[in-house]
């Protein structure tokens, strides 16, 4: 007679713990979970990089007087940077600039 309600409670506690533990603790999905937001993130990352690239090119053109050339080049570099952003994000090496500690999460200490 005793075991049924106790079992139930235990199971529910376990379930609740599992539910609470999963999303927060991993750094993986920090924005929020769904595929929608992941897509949104990728979109902003790509567009931001293209805009920055294009803007830099535009500015450099203005300074150097090479009207469309640098901007065209820099927009392509912006695309590259944008895809690099997305690639880094999706492979979980978020926001690392440079390839230095790609694997094993940076056990090679800094050298100066």
């Amino acid at each position: 007679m005793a075991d049924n309600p106790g079992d139930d409670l235990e199971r529910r506690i376990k379930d609740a713990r599992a539910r609470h533990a999963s999303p927060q603790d991993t750094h993986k999905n920090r924005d929020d979970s769904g595929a929608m937001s992941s897509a949104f993130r990728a979109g902003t990352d790509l567009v931001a990089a293209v805009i920055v690239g294009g803007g830099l090119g535009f500015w450099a053109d203005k300074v150097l007087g090479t009207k469309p050339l640098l901007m065209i080049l820099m927009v392509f570099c912006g695309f590259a940077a944008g895809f690099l952003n997305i690639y880094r994000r999706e492979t979980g090496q978020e926001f690392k600039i440079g390839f230095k500690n790609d694997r094993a999460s940076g056990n090679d200490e800094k050298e100066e």
Partner: protein
Amino acid sequence: MSKGHSPLEQFAIKPIFPLQAGGFDISFTQSALFMILAVVATAALMTLGGKRRAMVPGRWQNVAEMFYEFVYGMAGDALGREARKFFPFIFSVFMIVLMGNLFGMLPYAFTYTSHIVVTGALALMVITVATAVGIAYHGLHFFSLFLPKGLPWMIAPLVILIEVISYLSRPLSLSVRLFANMVAGHTMLKVFAGFSVMMGAVFGMLPLVLNMALIGLELMIAFIQAYVFAILTCLYLKDGVELH
């Protein structure tokens, strides 16, 4: 839709005390008012919440401790021992974004995080501080961040260019994400509220119910976006502090 009922009307900046100085419009706007409210609310929450110092915290102390520990844990995860130095900065960024988002959820309130000027300025400040910290810690060696190790020299210029663009695009991406989330959420709420009005008392209940659910979602997004903003601040600082 008639004038004044556009879902974007809520984002208009209206001056409270019009003020001109040196050709610039420096009016005290409702945006500024809510920023001040956010700062006052944060300061009040933290000082009043921390005043009692009870062993068993009361409600306000509990909230204050919760925020503190949440941000401290986040900073500690990213920055390790260095977290203590940057904690005030990270906490301020977190609270100003969170309070902006949460104040925006009140009826008739203005959401200052729905303006890219505000989020952009915040993100620029964050990236400037992170870069300054990197230079302060490592000097000019900091810029080796952009040069991957073991890179053939022939493609180095290209890769450095791409890395620099990638670095500079981060504040833009960060600010756009916060601002777009806020604008989208508040516009959606207003659109559904407009449906409620248009569909009358009976059928109007349907969008109203949906709106209630959306408000819950918006509250969640308010927290998540503040969290994202703060954790990205941590990660940018980490780049500057650690520099492998």
